[in-house]
C-alpha cells in the first residue's frame, strides 16, 4: 500500500448561476476560489462581464491531502472594499471518489451556494476528474477507488436483494491491477 500524502484532481470551474450581491444582481468581476479547510488550491480569473451568471471554464490541477473530506468552492467578487464572498459550497470528496465508476471518470457536479447568512445564493457548476498516477494504475491496491463504498445506499432494499451482478466485474478489475 502506497502512502500517498495527496492525490491530484483536475478541477474545471465551469460557471455560476443566479449569484447575487446583497440580493441585487452581480455586475461583474466574479471569480471562484477553491480550497480545502487548511489551504487554498486555486482560483479563477474574474469574469469581467458575466454578471450574475459568470462563466469561467478554467481547468486547474490541484493536490488535495489524502485525508481531506471536503473541498470548498467560494464565489467572490472584487469590490472597492476588497474581495467579498458571495456564496460558498462544500463538495464532499465522496461525490467524486469511491462508488463503482472508474477512478478517472469525469464527474459533472453542481452545488447550491449559500451566502454568509446561510441564504441560498445561486448554483456553482464544476467538473472533477481524479488524476490516476501511472504507478497507482498498475498496482492492485488503489485506495478509495472502485472497490470502495458502493454507490449511495446499500443495494439491499427491503426483502429481496436485487439481482445486480456484483461478483465478476469487480474481481476482474482487482486482479487487473
Amino acid at each position: 500500500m502506497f502512502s500517498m500524502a495527496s492525490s491530484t484532481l483536475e478541477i474545471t470551474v465551469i460557471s455560476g448561476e443566479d449569484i447575487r450581491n446583497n440580493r441585487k444582481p452581480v455586475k461583474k468581476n466574479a471569480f471562484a476560489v477553491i480550497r480545502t479547510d487548511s489551504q487554498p488550491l486555486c482560483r479563477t480569473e474574474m469574469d469581467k462581464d458575466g454578471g450574475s451568471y459568470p462563466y469561467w471554464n478554467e481547468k486547474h490541477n490541484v493536490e488535495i491531502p489524502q485525508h481531506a473530506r471536503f473541498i470548498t468552492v467560494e464565489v467572490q467578487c472584487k469590490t472597492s472594499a476588497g474581495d467579498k464572498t458571495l456564496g460558498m459550497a462544500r463538495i464532499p470528496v465522496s461525490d467524486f471518489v469511491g462508488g463503482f465508476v472508474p477512478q478517472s471518470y469525469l464527474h459533472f457536479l453542481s452545488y447550491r451556494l449559500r451566502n454568509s447568512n446561510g441564504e441560498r445564493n445561486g448554483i456553482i457548476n464544476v467538473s472533477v476528474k481524479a488524476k490516476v498516477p501511472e504507478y497507482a494504475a498498475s498496482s492492485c491496491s488503489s485506495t478509495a477507488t472502485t472497490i470502495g463504498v458502493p454507490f449511495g445506499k446499500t443495494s439491499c432494499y427491503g426483502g429481496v436483494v436485487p439481482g445486480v451482478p456484483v461478483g465478476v466485474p469487480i474481481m476482474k478489475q482487482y486482479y487487473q491491477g
Partner: protein
Amino acid sequence: MGNCCSDEAGGRAAVGGTAASQDNPISGPNDAVSHFLNSRGYQGLYSQIELSYSASDLRDRDLLSKSDPMVVVYTKGRDGTLEELGRTEVVLNSLNPTWITKHTISYQFEIVQTLVFRVYDVDTQFHNVEVKMLRLDEQQFLGEASAVLSEIVTKSNHSLTLDLVHREESSRSTRPRNCGKLTVHAEECISSKTTTEMILRCSDLEYKDLFSRSDPFLVISKVVEAGIPIPVYKTEVIKNDLKPTWKTVYLNIQQVGSKESPLVIECFNFNSSGKHDLIGKVQKSLADLEKLHSGGQGENLFLPSLVGQNYHNKVLKSQLFVDKYSQNIQHTFLDYLAGGCALNFMVAIDFTASNGNPRLPDSLHYIDPSGRPNSYQRAIIEVGEVLQFYDSDKSFPAWGFGARPIDGPVSHCFNLNGSSHHCEVEGIQGIMMAYTSALLNVSLAGPTLFGPVIGNAALISSQSLANGGRKYFVLLIITDGVVTDLQETKDALVKASDLPLSILIVGVGGADFKEMEILDADKGERLESSTGRVASRDIVQFVPFRDVQGGEISVVQALLAELPTQFLTYMRTRDIQPISC
C-alpha cells in the same frame, strides 16, 4: 426584414447555432421509430421539417413602445387537443418581427398534421425569464392562426402567410379586427453532421453617434432562393467596443445549407429600444470565411447608403476577421448507436395498494381475461416497443416496488421475475410474463418510494462504466401515485444526473400528478438534494398516461422527445465519440 434581433432585456444573449447541443438531434430518418410507426400501419414518409416564422402588422398593445412578440406553436391532435411544440424567443419592440428560433417536426404523408400558432406580446417584466418558463396567461394575446403542415410544404416557396385572428374581439365587433399576418416557412432538414467553429472579430468600427457608445453584435443570415435573408445566428452583445471579438460561433452546415451558400453577416449597434443601427455588413459563404482565416486578412464591411436616387455601397474602413475556423463532425444520436453505444432499457412497476385489488376489474392491475391490456401493460408496450430497437441484447432488468413478496417484508425494489439473484427478463414478452406472475405472488402494500429503484438503476449504470461499457440506461417507472419520498427521490436523481442514465416516469390512473412534475426540470427548477448538491443534468421526463395513447404521434414524441438530447448531452460534454467501423 424588420427587426430580427431578439434579446432578453438583461441578457443580450446569443441566439441560434448549435453550441451546447440544444438542438433536436433527430435529423434524418429514424429507423426504430419508422418501424414502430410501420407496425401500426403508417407506411409513409418520415422526414424532418424545420419551421421558421415572421410576422407583419402586429397589433400594438403597449402604450409607450411596440409589442415584444413571441410565437407559441402547437400541434393539434385528432380530438382537437393542443400540444405545445415549442416557443420562439421574444423579439423586442417590433410589429414586424422575424424570429430566429426554429422548430423541427416530423412530416408524415398520410396524417393531417394541424399546427396552431399563437402570437403573444411578452410583458417587459418577463424579459429576463427563459421563454419555456413563461406563463401564457400572464402575457398579452395578439392573435392566432392555424395551418396544416402539408399546405405549407407543398407551396412553391415553402412559405404560407396566414391572417392572425383574435376570436374574442372579432365576435364583438361587426368587422373582424386586423391582427396582422404570420408567415410560416417550412424546410426539409438535410442531415449534416459538420459543425463549424468560428471566432469572429471586427476592427475599426465606426461611431454611429458621437454621444453614445457602440455595443456591437453580429447577425448571420442565410440567403434563400427568393433572395430573402433568413437569420440563423446572432452573437452576444459586446459593450462599448470598437474592436470586438465575439465568443465562438458554432454553426451546423445544415443550418446554412452548404458551405458555399451565400451568407450575409451584419454588424449592428445594440439599442435597448430595439432599433439597432446597422454599422456594416459583408456577404461571404462559410468557404469564403475559411479562406479569410487561412489568409489572415480581413474583409471590409460595407454599408448600403442612399446617394441621390440609388443605393450605393459605401465601403467602410472597418474589417471583419476570422480568427478561428475549424470544422468538427458532430455526431447524431444514430451515429452513436451505430458506433458502439447501446441503450439499455429497464422497467420498474408500482405495486402499491392504491392501484386496487388486482382481482377486481376497477384495479389498475386488473388482467382482463379478454386480453385487453391494462394501463401498466399499455405503457410497457408503447414505450418498450420503441426502446427495444435500441437495446442490443433485449435483456431488460425489471423490478416491482411497494409490495410484499411471498413471506417477506415490504420491498421497494424486488425482481419482477421472482428470482433472487438476477433481475433481467427477455424481451417485452418477458416483462409481460414476469408482471402477470408477480401479480399472483405479491401482496400490494406501500408507500410509493422511488429512491431504491432509482438507486439500483444508478448502481447498474455506474458498474457498467466500471466495465468500460458504452451503454446508456433508460429506466421506465410506471406508477399510479404521487411519490412519498420526494426528497429521497430527489437525492437519488441528483446523484444519478452524473451517470449515463435517463428516467421516464409514466403516471397511470386518475391521480393528480402535479407534484411529480417537479421532478421534470422542464416544468420546474433544477433538483436539489438534501446535502446541497444540485442535479448537473435534467435526466427525468414525466408524462401522465392520459397523453400516452396508442396510435397517436404523441406517444413517441412525448416520451422520447428528450431522450436523444439527454443522451447526446452526456456524450458530448464528456467528449465521447462514436467508434467508427
